[in-house]
Each structure stands twice: as C-alpha cells, then as structure tokens.
C-alpha cells in the first residue's frame, strides 16, 4: 500500500525527494556541535556533555531543589529528550505544572489567577518560546521567566529559604529588582516587596497567636482534648502558605480570601475550641 504511493511520489517529485534525502543525511551538520537532533538523550549524557560545555549550568542545577527531589528532576524532565526542542518545551508553564500539583494546586492556581497568569493564558500560543528568558522577551512572565531568569538553573534563588524563612529580598534583593524591572519601575517593586513582607508578618502573627494559645492550653488539657484545635492548625498552615503564594505570585485572591480572612477564621475557631474546654472543665 505504502510503496506504490511512495514510488509515485518519487517519480512525480524526483528533485524534492532528493532534497529531503540530502537534508535528512546532513541533519547532524545543521545542529550545534554536530549532535544528531533526532537522537534521544538521557540525563547522564546531558550532564557529561554540558559539564564540559557549561559547568556553571550543571552546578546551578545541582545546588537547586530540583536535584534533590525524589525522583530527581533531571534535564529531560523539563527539556524532553530531543535536543532540537529543548528550549521550546522547558520554558513553558505546562512543563512545571504537572509536578507542582496540577492546575488546581495553590502553587499553580495562585499564579494563574494573577494578572501575569491571566495574560499568559490568553497569549501563550502567540509567544516565541525559543527566545531567552530575559529582556522582556515575553509580554508576561511564565514560571521560568522569574524562577529561572536568564536561564539560571538554580530555581532556589527566587524562592524563600525554607530553613530561615528569609525572603530572597533579604538575601539578594537585586535579583528580584532585576527581573521585575524588565517591566516595572524600581520604586513600585521596592514598595510591593516591602508591603508583601509586612503582609506576611501579619499572617505569621495570627499563626503565632494560635500556637501560643495551643501551647498554653496543653499545660492544662490532654493531647486528645486539644486535637480539634490541632486539626485547625493544619488548615492554618495551608492558609499561611496561601498568603506566601499570593504575595509571591501577586494574586490578590490568595493574599485575601484564601489567606488572611481564612487565617482569621482559623484563629477564632482555635480560640473557640480552647475556651469551650475551659468553660467545660469548670462545670
């Protein structure tokens, strides 16, 4: 079935056929460093080669949280295994979304309901994803534009230090300034960052107040009695995280409805549980 068709094709378009044949054979010559683009790679091969080519890139990745995830978030996890398509895939949000909890996870949803995310949903099909992640090459930033700016493979640089909870602004404010300044004025960025810090401090105050209450109550009541309060505290931690995500991704809804008033509710319910215990024990 296939062959007669093919034969007809050759007879009709003999020049075209030879052109494609030549192109196919010479493909390796068209690609960088003579790498055949149709060949697929595994993580080990990528690292071996790129460590010679660009050692900083590999060490940046090794320093990042991606290198220590289980299973490891390797080169091909984001770039795929076709060398010709690497940048186009890895820069797009779809590459990140699946591992980061899917479209409905707070991490992703806080971005997609931000103004950046909304514009991205409307325009992503019209962007040229082969352009570098710098210089406002994209009208709105995707995940990688901020978290891997200029192709920086250490995503941690744009995240908060988990152990100290110190924000990047305290560690390397110039990086945030630099990324946002592709589009926004320096004063706006500074004031927004300051405001975000204060908003987070307030969120922490609510959690601290609740924690202190539980701690004090644990001197009087058993773990079992305090279980309902501790259950609420688990929710409270998520709502605190929502404020972080709302501030980081600039989503008003995560700062507010999924964040601050939700924390208010958790706090007063924890107070409710503990005061009912006190009232009950007095009967």
């Amino acid at each position, binding site marked *: 079935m296939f062959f007669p068709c093919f034969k007809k094709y050759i007879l009709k378009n003999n020049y075209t056929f030879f052109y494609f044949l030549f192109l196919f054979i010479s493909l390796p010559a068209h690609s960088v460093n003579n790498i055949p683009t149709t060949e697929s790679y595994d993580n080990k091969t990528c690292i071996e080669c790129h460590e010679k080519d660009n050692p900083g890139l590999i060490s940046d990745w090794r320093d990042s949280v991606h290198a220590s995830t289980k299973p490891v978030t390797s080169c091909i996890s984001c770039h795929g295994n076709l060398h010709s398509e690497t940048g186009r895939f890895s820069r797009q949000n779809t590459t990140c979304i699946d591992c980061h909890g899917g479209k409905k996870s707070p991490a992703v949803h806080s971005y997609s309901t931000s103004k950046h995310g909304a514009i991205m949903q409307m325009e992503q099909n019209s962007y040229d994803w082969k352009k570098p992640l710098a210089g406002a090459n994209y009208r709105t930033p995707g995940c990688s534009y901020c978290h891997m700016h200029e192709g920086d493979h250490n995503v941690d640089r744009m995240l908060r230090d988990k152990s100290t909870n110190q924000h990047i602004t305290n560690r390397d404010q110039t990086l945030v300034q630099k990324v946002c300044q592709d589009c926004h004025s320096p004063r706006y960025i500074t004031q927004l960052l300051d405001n975000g810090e204060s908003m987070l401090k307030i969120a922490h105050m609510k959690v601290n107040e609740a924690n202190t209450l539980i701690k004090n109550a644990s001197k009087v009541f058993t773990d079992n009695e305090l279980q309902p309060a501790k259950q609420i505290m688990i929710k409270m931690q998520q709502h605190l995280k929502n404020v972080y995500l709302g501030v980081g991704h600039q989503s*008003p809804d995560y700062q507010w409805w999924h964040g601050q008033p939700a924390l208010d509710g958790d706090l007063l319910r924890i107070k409710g549980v503990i*005061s009912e215990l006190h009232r009950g024990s007095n009967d």
Partner: protein
Amino acid sequence: MKSTRVKYIWIPILISIILIPPGFYFVDWSKSGEGAGLYSRDWSPEDIFAYWNPDDFYNSTQIVAGSFDGEACIDCHQGVTPGIVKDWQASSHSKAKEIVYCNDCHGSDHENLHLPTPEVCADCHSVQHDQFEDEKRYGFPGHTLAMERALDAKHFVDKPKAEVTACLQCHSVATKCDSCHTRHKFSAAEARRPEACITCHSGPPHPDDETYFHSAHGQLYLKEGQNWDWSKPLKKGNYPAPTCAYCHMDEGKHQVADKSIWKFGIKQINPLSSGNVIKRNKWIKLCSDCHEADWSAQQLKAMDRERKQAWKKLYQAEAILKDLRSSNALYPDAEHRPPYPGDDSDDLFQREHIGFFEGQASAFYNVSPIERDYFEMWYFANLGAYKGSAHGDNSFVKKGHEAMDKSLEKIKQDAKLLHRSGKSEIDEIITRSIWNTGEYTDFNRENN
C-alpha cells in the same frame, strides 16, 4: 392655640438649617485625614497604595529631573523598563495617526509625573468614561464605586493596612483602566476575554471563573476561544458563546451594574419589583441573541427559585443567631471581645452584628465561631451557589446548597449547646486571656 403650635414647627426647621453647614463641614473634615474616604482620619496608607489609588496617594518620583516628550521617553525606557516599551509599541497608541506618547498620559516633567486615572483616559475615550461614570447610579456592587466602598468598609479601616492592601488591588478597578486593559498595551480585545476578569472574580465569595468555565458557555470558550476573532465588538453574531463581558458589558458598554438584579447574591431582593422586571427583560433580550426568549425567561426564573431556597436557609440561620443574641447566649459576646471594627457607638452599646443589614460583612474576625459559621454559609456557600445558578453550573449550585445545609445543621446543634451552657463564671478570665490579647489581636488593636 393652633397658631402657637405652628410657630413651634420653625424651631426644628431652624435647627436643621443651622446644622446643615456644620454637617457638610464635618464630612469634609472627616475626609481630610492621612487616609482617604469617610474614615480618613482613622488610618494612614501604606506606600504601595499610591499605585492602587493614584488620585489620593500618588506622588511622582524625584529621581530624574527634566522635561521629556515622545521619543525621548522611549529612548531611555527601552533600557530601563524594556517590557513597557515593547507593550506600547504593540499597542494602538503607538500606531494612531497622532501617536499617543508616554507624556500624553504621564506628563512631561519627570519630577511631577502622574499615574493615569480614568479621567486621563477620558480625554480621548470619553464615551467609555461617561458610561463608566454613569454606572454609579446603579449603586454597589459595581466597578465605579469599588474603591470608595473598599476604603469606607469598617474592616478595611480597622485592620492593619499592609493586610488590607490585598483588597485595593481588585477595588482599583474604579481608579485605573488597566485592571482590564493591562498596561501598556491597553487592548480592547484582551478585555473582551474571560481571563481579563479572573484575577478579581475568583475565590470563595465570587467563583465567577470556575462557574463560567464549568458552564456550557465556558466549555465552548475553553475549546475554541483561542481561534475566535477578539477584535470584533461584543455584539450578536460575533461570538459562538458569550464571555463575561459579552453579557455583563454587552455591546461594549462600560458598565457592569446596569442589569444587576441579585446584587452579587449578598442580600435578598425582590426580582418582581418594577425596576428589576425592566432589568430582567434586558437579560432576556440579551440571551435571545442565541436562545429562545421563553426558554431564557424560564432559566432566569429557575435562578429566582434557587435564590428563594437559599435565602430561606440563610434566614433560618440568622434567626438562630438573633435568638442567641437576645437570650445573651453567644460566647464570647460583643462585650467580651474586641469591638466591632470602626464603630465608636459600640463602646457605649455593644451588640453583635448579624446579617447584611447590620453590617456582618465586616464581622468575619474577632467574633464567636458560630457567627463565623454563618458568615461562611452566607459569603462562601450561598454566593457560590448563586454564581453557579447565574452562570449555568449546576455542580456549584449543588455544592453550595449542600454546604449551606451542613452549616445550618451545625449552627442548630451549636446553638443548642450555647443555650444549654449559658454563661460561666470563668468567662471573664477566659475572654481576657484568650479573646482579647495575643500577638495579632494586640497588633490589630494598635495599628490601623
């Protein structure tokens, strides 16, 4: 006898007339504080407020001196903030016969720049601005009144300002046109698409995004919307399915409140009042772009039935709370917890605020758990069901009503317990140590 009585009528009239100027003076005085709005003397703004409400708070940077026009701005900002230059280059402003340059909206004196308010845009887009201003007469909820209503909200005045910055980002829809036409492209096509609305119209009290995207209309949009020609006006025959703007800003009219009947679902209204019947007919006419008028009318009636059912549940819960209040069984009661936000009269006469008309929308913190339960039933479950009903997403209607039933049941049970436990002698001690102090509670009391 009669004539002497008539004489006395002049006394209250005279007093009222004398009091009118001081009244105006008082309102002016109360608006002249560091903040803005009716309670401006009670709070001071965060720096970032300048960008959400430029009219009240923006002052130009003083970093660069000199006067710049046209290409001079572009030349410099291409290096400083390339993104906005690229955006402007892609905009209609840069392609207009008479190019609209940076200085046309921001001014030329770099030490006296301003952020463009709707009034600045009105210089050229007066039709849209007139429509936008005209929306005020339909009241709130709506876009044009959004900022002043946010600033005058009791909880906004009361809470630390860094916390309520979150509010202003969305409520700035009243003070800047770029909420929908994002800077510096200011595209009409972009604002016609549903994603233009979702940054503010999402989350528990207004899941407009989810309910629309779940609906048949939204499903069609998600499937095919990328290929529709968004340069077309929002008119009959131009789009295979309606978007937010197609219905709420039909024919591109810059108003969202002119057809608003159920007022966001936060209070019960009578859909059969003469004004609402006129509005309803406007909706039916709009749906008739694609559907039969009778069918559309039936769908809208079904929404009224759903609303009636929802309010039946809400009023039951409200009655339980008011009953607890009258028998002094709420714990902690208003006397034993931080005062209701921004209400001076509460110092003299402390009272729990229950339901829409008593302003419970501002009382979602520092209240007893049962009041918060009602707030969530009303603000989250009920409003979710309403949005589901209005946008054609039955899953949200079902979910909302199930949540309301669950809340109502819980409120009933908890009310029984509260009635039974009454007041305890250690209440005073508990309220002092648990309800009236703490890291956030203290900070909130001292900072607004």
